[in-house]
């Protein structure tokens, strides 16, 4: 937890010290291939099967049990 907090604190200057990008300059950022949820549904499905293979994936609850396939 301590390392997580340190990581978050290190990012704060990056998040707050950036030059402002105007709306008319964001054409490329709005492109589907740049949008963060471009593959959001795929990533959710991936989390589900990775949760059955890896010890650190998942843990957000509600992904079903699948006792017999884990």
């Amino acid at each position, binding site marked *: 937890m301590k390392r997580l907090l340190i990581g978050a604190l290190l990012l704060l200057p990056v998040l707050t010290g950036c030059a402002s990008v105007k709306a008319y300059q964001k054409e*490329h950022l709005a492109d589907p291939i740049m949008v963060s949820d471009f593959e959001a549904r795929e990533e959710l499905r991936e989390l589900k099967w990775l949760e059955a293979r890896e010890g650190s994936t998942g843990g957000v609850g509600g992904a079903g049990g699948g006792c017999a396939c884990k």
Partner: protein
Amino acid sequence: MMLIGPADSYAAVDRALSGYTFHHFSDVDEVSVSSHFMRQGVQMENGFGAALQINHETVVVPAIDASIGSEEAVDAITTASRPISNLADAFTDFVKTRNEVQGSMAYRGAELGYYVSDENDYFAQMVWTNYSREFMGENLNLSAGLNYAWDRIEPVDDLRSQGAPGSRNTLYMSFVATQVLTPTTVLRAGIERSLVDGLQHNPYRNVYAGGGNVGEIHPVRRGRNDFFVRVSQFIRNGSSIKVDYRYYSDDWHLDSHTVGTRLTQYITDDFIVRYRYRYYRQSAAWFFRDEYQSSSGIDGYLTGDYRLDQFDAHLFGGKIFWNLNRFFKSYDFIQRVDLTLGYERYFNSTNFTANIFETGLEMSF
């Protein structure tokens, strides 16, 4: 455009979307999972949005090809982790279905949702809420989320184990910041914390300990933390590259590092290809052993769970996104039709491999 809502408050529908995706997973143990995923969403001009998702899954765990308890069946017993209600059915495939429904509503950055999943031995429910807001001229987005899940586990009859019913509750919190760095670069970073309380082992799995077979026992509490960061960069030739890293640790002393990259490229205006690679490495949980000397394990805990061992894993693959609008020009009510096809391969240092196929068709109106 259509109108929905009470007579005195009609709101115009800005966009409606329907989608269907077929997903198939198969691994080296011949376990397969086929999913039929349907999605319906609507976005109103007043900012209100709603979505409904339904998933129907069929899981097939293969038959055991040796007598139960025999040396030849050891791997099948410990890794397939399937119930066997009588000797005859061990030699036939075990098939189970999972049905999931998820509904959510969103309005001006706030979201509320409910999820339910039903299987013959597992019933899960979850509620979640999320709020996000823009700052600094819409260059910074901050988002906070909270989930609460409660699961009920009811093992079916099993000859080899006496897995007792149990429940599990999960509280999950997240905080994510997305910052525009330049007109072509975005940074996304977040922290997640979850607290899991209840049954966390597989009630069908046995462990060899002290010369005999005993049921798996995991601690009932687990606190999990992670930190992640992703940088997305647009490249002038019509492609983007995303690089991400995640660090995870929990109070079972398991920690992991994940590094991934995705290259997404326009081949034509309506055809996109995406390549990816992901590397994952984790340490073992403090009570994991290849072999237990006594049936009481390590401080009373035993596990045969491969997920709690130390290993590393690789995932790579590709996917295409094909916009089919030109084939539907004569249908005015259709705004967009997208076809997706994907293949990925996963393998790890414990000799596990899996093939993942995905096809999807999504339409918006």
